């Protein structure tokens, strides 16, 4: 550790202003502060600071995705061997999935971080930790069979047009990971939906549709999976979205550490249940009749609720706004699923839609506060 510190101190001047590699200053700084919390001390304001920083916070989100990731890796293998009709052991399944998913993760991080570093350098900023999470979320919402070049293109699109054009982490309007997925969904629909993409090297004879896909085409009664299987995640789907259980473990980590807003999470589920319940009451077709709670364990609903809707930058920022925002995400997600057969995955669209409306919700919450204060001013004026 001390040796490493000495080495960093020795090469540091090269990257500072006037040094030979000054153009890589941001990159150097990012690596240095990753290895060592800087020796910077407080200059103005509070003389002491909380031990927390954005690195820690982001690292906890990444940690929370690990159960879904590990399960996803296993499930990729499991679905593959199931489809080709081969018996496989636990480790065989996992190993197969690991090698399938790892390249997606690497491509996502390399592309995204490369662009982030370049932008930080050009702006003379420090590299922001936001992409550590985005880079992990992107692989988790990709179909396991997605071509790697598509991951690269989508990540680049999301980072540049979803985030950097707005000014970088903290300034973006749309969730970058979902922007990546939406980009692929609309640009390369055949690789992102249907029943071919969810299982690696699927033989044609095997039906590989997700439960949502089945429901969409009206085969609601023939979904070959029980609710327990859907909850546990033994179903085809995007890498990280299938196991509600694994996602809930992540949710517990996020809630204990207070990193994600329980208000948003809870109200997304409430909104989904509410819409499902309304459909149950109406009951015009078979899809409307599936129990409301089943919506919560199908497709990307749980993953979206836990990891996507709770992104603090793109969600509403006021406490009251969070309830409204979350509720409407759940509400619209189920509505889109049932009403719009072209888009089985309503969650992605519902979240992106509400991302756009989040500032408006905050605006009205804020206006209520302002009105209350103005009324008080006027009341006092009258009294005086």
């Amino acid at each position, binding site marked *: 550790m001390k040796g490493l*510190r000495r080495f960093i101190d020795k090469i540091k001047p090269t990257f500072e202003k006037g040094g030979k590699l000054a153009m890589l200053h941001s990159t150097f700084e990012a690596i240095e502060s990753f290895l*060592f919390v800087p020796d910077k001390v407080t200059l103005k304001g*509070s003389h002491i*600071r909380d031990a*927390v*920083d954005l*690195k*820690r916070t982001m690292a906890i989100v990444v940690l929370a995705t690990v159960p879904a990731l590990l399960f996803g890796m296993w499930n990729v293998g499991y679905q593959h061997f199931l489809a080709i009709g081969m018996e496989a052991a636990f480790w065989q399944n996992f190993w197969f999935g690991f090698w399938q998913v790892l390249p997606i993760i690497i491509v996502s991080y390399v592309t995204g971080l490369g662009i982030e570093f370049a932008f930080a350098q050009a702006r003379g900023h420090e590299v922001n930790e936001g992409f550590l999470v985005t880079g992990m979320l992107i692989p988790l919402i990709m179909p396991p069979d997605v071509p790697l070049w598509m991951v690269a293109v989508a990540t680049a699109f999301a980072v540049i047009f979803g985030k950097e054009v707005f000014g970088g982490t903290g300034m973006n309007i749309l969730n970058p990971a979902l922007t990546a997925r939406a980009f692929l969904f609309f640009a390369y629909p055949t690789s992102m939906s249907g029943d071919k993409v969810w299982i690696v090297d699927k033989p044609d004879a095997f039906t590989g549709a997700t439960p949502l896909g089945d429901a969409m085409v009206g085969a609601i009664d023939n979904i070959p999976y029980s609710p327990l299987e859907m909850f546990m995640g033994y179903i085809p789907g995007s890498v990280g979205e299938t196991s509600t259980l694994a996602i809930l473990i992540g949710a517990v980590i996020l809630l204990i*550490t207070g990193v994600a807003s329980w208000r948003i999470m809870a109200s997304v589920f409430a909104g989904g249940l509410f819409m499902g319940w309304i459909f149950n009451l109406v009951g015009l077709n078979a899809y409307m009749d599936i129990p409301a709670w089943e919506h919560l364990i199908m497709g990307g609903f749980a993953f979206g609720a836990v990891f996507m809707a709770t992104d603090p930058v793109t969600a509403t920022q006021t406490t009251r706004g969070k309830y409204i925002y979350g509720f409407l995400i759940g509400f619209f997600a189920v509505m889109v699923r049932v009403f719009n057969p072209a888009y089985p995955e309503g969650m992605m669209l519902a979240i992106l839609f509400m991302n756009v409306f989040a500032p408006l919700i905050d605006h009205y919450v804020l206006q209520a506060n302002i009105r209350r*204060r103005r009324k008080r001013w006027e009341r006092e004026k009258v009294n005086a």
Partner: protein
Amino acid sequence: MSQTIKVRKGLDIQLVGEATKSLINISPQTYASKPIDFIGVFPKVLVQAGDEVKAGTPLYFDKFREQILFTSPVSGKVKEIRRGEKRVLREIIIEAGKTNEYVDFGSADPHELSREQIIGKMVQSGVWPLLRQRPFSVIANPEDDPKAIVISTFDTSPLAPDYNFIMQGTEEAFKAGICALRRITSGKIFMNVLDGKSTCDEFLDPEHVLIHRFQGPHPTGNVSTQIAKLDPINKGEVIWYLRPQEVLMIGRLFLTGKYDASKIYALTGSMVKKPAYYKTIAGACITEMVKGNLHEGKSRFISGNVLTGTRIASDGYASFYDSQITVIPEGNYFEFFGWAMPGLNKFSFYTQFFSWMSPKKKFNLDTNFHGAERAFVMTGKYEKVFPFDIYPMQLIKAIMVEDIDLMENLGIYELDAEDFALIEFIDTSKIEIQSIVRDGLELLRKETT
């Protein structure tokens, strides 16, 4: 007795180095009056190095409000007039004489004086700057009639001095001070005490002042928190506020006719070997308190508390409004993978570190920044340490873009920079929020006055 007002939001930062309840008398060689303690004051010096002064002799006045005088806390000789960058007057240092001589302003019973006479005496003797106003935290304007005067008799900030201890045996001066304040406003006088037994509380007959009991974590002791619960400041309104030791100085002026600036300071912080209370005079040099009383290592000396105090040198001087000196270790070290450690020994507001499992533990915090500045990312956290019906992040953003209307609408008049100290402390993005708020208030003050 009114019922206890409970403040739920906030954070008590548990630090080691609380002052033990023992009082040590000291009389340092030098004292200072520091114009930089006063917001918006442009000092015009009235003395030169070498001049003889008494306690109560004017040292400088404010160019913008010439009637407001700043007087010497002790008698002796002007040792040095210290200027900083751009010739900003930083400190006027007085070397104390053998005995303390006072300018005689004449003792008087405030009951028998008119409002003008009381204010005249306070202004002339230099106790007037003890009264500050909200909004903006500047020295009160003698021409205003505030809607209330607020006295917070307790401090909830980290390692704060215990006013129950400091105020023992000060009944006479305190009552005289309250009496003078009573005469200079037609508004209410709020005295806010901590729930439980309070020394100040016993001094008063509740007919003269409105006593409210408060309970809760920091920032319950802040004036803004209290006034927000009692009678929020509206646009165009002014309140005055002061601390108990300042009431005493006003009281003594009327009892004795002297500007008696004696004051008790709590010396606190983890670097101090024997944290205790010191009785001396306002503006005292801290050397005598800290010499031989510190642990090994590089220290930061703070006049005030760790959240809002001002950094001073090891031979610096206590600031005008502070009753506390804090010494904590500097944190200029690198920490290998510090952000990834379990953090049992790291104090944090967040449950991201495992130290949350030992809520009673006291911590030794240093001045390390624990990261670097980032854009706003996390939401919903500031509100947890901010007991106001105000949206802090939105207000900070309004200040950053200098949108004056929005700042007003979002409630900036009800706040001061110190109310954002906890937010600054817990901020994941490490933004220097207190100075942003200070700048916003200054902008507003210049635009509106």
